[in-house]
């Protein structure tokens, strides 16, 4: 109960700070609009191929927006020297990590709320519950991994370089399973149930692993 209270307090603090400063959301929104524009003009899109190109643009935009969102989670704390103040309290480092991951995931969900309707509008991607579920499930695991590596690299100078190097390889399972789920939800070949099952498995695996690792990453 206490851990939940701490995690919610950290998430609320991060989201309140973001609401007031609007540092990240405009940058992410701009990024997503640019990804859509590049996708629109970079490919020769017509009514036949739009739905096959849309999932690719969706995951590309999410991956890069995620890198920006998660990269800031711990970097801002380091810059304002507030991470140490948090870690000097009796609060569990795992709860602090969970709160930060929750806030970063919420920001990514905000991006998805713009991205999915835009893909539906411009690329004819169906905005079904199946697509939304696949994207949200992938967000959970990506947030856990992204935040863990953001915490690891926050203390080094070349963090902007290191974060994608560490994070992208481990995000690949989510992109593959998420991509399969979205494609099959759009009526392309593949089993939706199998892809969603894989996403759930990856979520459980990486949420448990990152929670275990977070204690050592933050405590030392």
């Amino acid at each position, binding site marked *: 109960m206490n851990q939940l209270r701490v995690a919610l307090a950290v998430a609320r*603090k991060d989201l309140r700070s973001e609401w007031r400063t609007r540092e990240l959301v405009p940058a992410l929104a701009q990024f997503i609009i640019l990804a859509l524009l590049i996708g629109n003009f970079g490919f020769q899109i017509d009514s036949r191929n739009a739905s096959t190109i849309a999932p690719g643009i969706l995951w590309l935009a999410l991956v890069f927006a995620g890198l920006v969102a998660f990269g800031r989670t711990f970097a801002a704390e380091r810059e*304002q*020297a507030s991470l140490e103040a948090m870690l*000097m309290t009796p609060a569990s480092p795992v709860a602090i990590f969970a709160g930060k991951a929750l806030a970063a995931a919420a920001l990514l969900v905000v991006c998805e709320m713009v991205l999915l309707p835009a893909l539906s509008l411009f690329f004819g991607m169906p905005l079904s519950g199946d697509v939304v579920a696949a994207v949200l499930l992938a967000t959970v695991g990506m947030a856990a991994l992204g935040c863990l590596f953001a915490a690891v690299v926050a203390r080094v100078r070349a963090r902007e370089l290191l974060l994608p190097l560490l994070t992208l390889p481990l995000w690949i399972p989510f992109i593959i399973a998420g991509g399969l789920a979205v494609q099959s939800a759009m009526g392309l070949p593949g089993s939706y149930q199998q892809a969603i099952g894989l996403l759930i498995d990856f979520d459980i695996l990486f949420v448990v692993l990152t929670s275990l690792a977070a204690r050592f990453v933050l405590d030392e």
Partner: protein
Amino acid sequence: MSVIVADGLTHRFGSEVALEGLDLVLDSGEHMAVLGENGAGKTTLLRVLATALRPTAGRLRIAGLDAFQERRRLRHYLGYVAHAPGLYPALSAAENLEFFCDLQGVSRSRAADVLETVGLKAVAHRRADQLSRGTQQRLAIGRAILHEPRLLILDEPDASLGAGAFDLLSGVMHGTTVVLATHDQALANRLCPRTIVLRHGRSLGTATHLRVVQ
């Protein structure tokens, strides 16, 4: 009862020695000032005593517990004001303290009491980035006493506080064991009966309380 017992505390950053073989015993309720030039090792010593930094060598016991094995338990026991205020700029003074109340596991109503103690009731709803450096420092001191710690580690808490430093610090330090680093020797003399002087990470000591490291 000894609150701090340090034995041969040493810390190196690479090949650079920041603290070397420091022995220290501090009893309950004692106030001790740490003096020294910039780079003498004051902040390193205070970070080690606050358990924010693990020393390269040496042993440290706080309240009878191994400071690094029992670090989490000691979080309830000590309050630390670091060199930088470490506040959330977009949150108000009250919100900053309320957030740390949640982390400390104390009631949020404690934030209002502490704001009054550190003289910030009037600016409680002003954002931290709109406060002066001295006011931010007051807020950082307030954050360190939210959970009523029995040991206070204060790293230059008088920085930017100006004329009100003595009154604020003497009020906050009352009834607790304190280690305070400062450049202001006059303030140190008024607040702390004991003084330790550091140079190049070594104690130059004051005879009765310290074993001077040769």
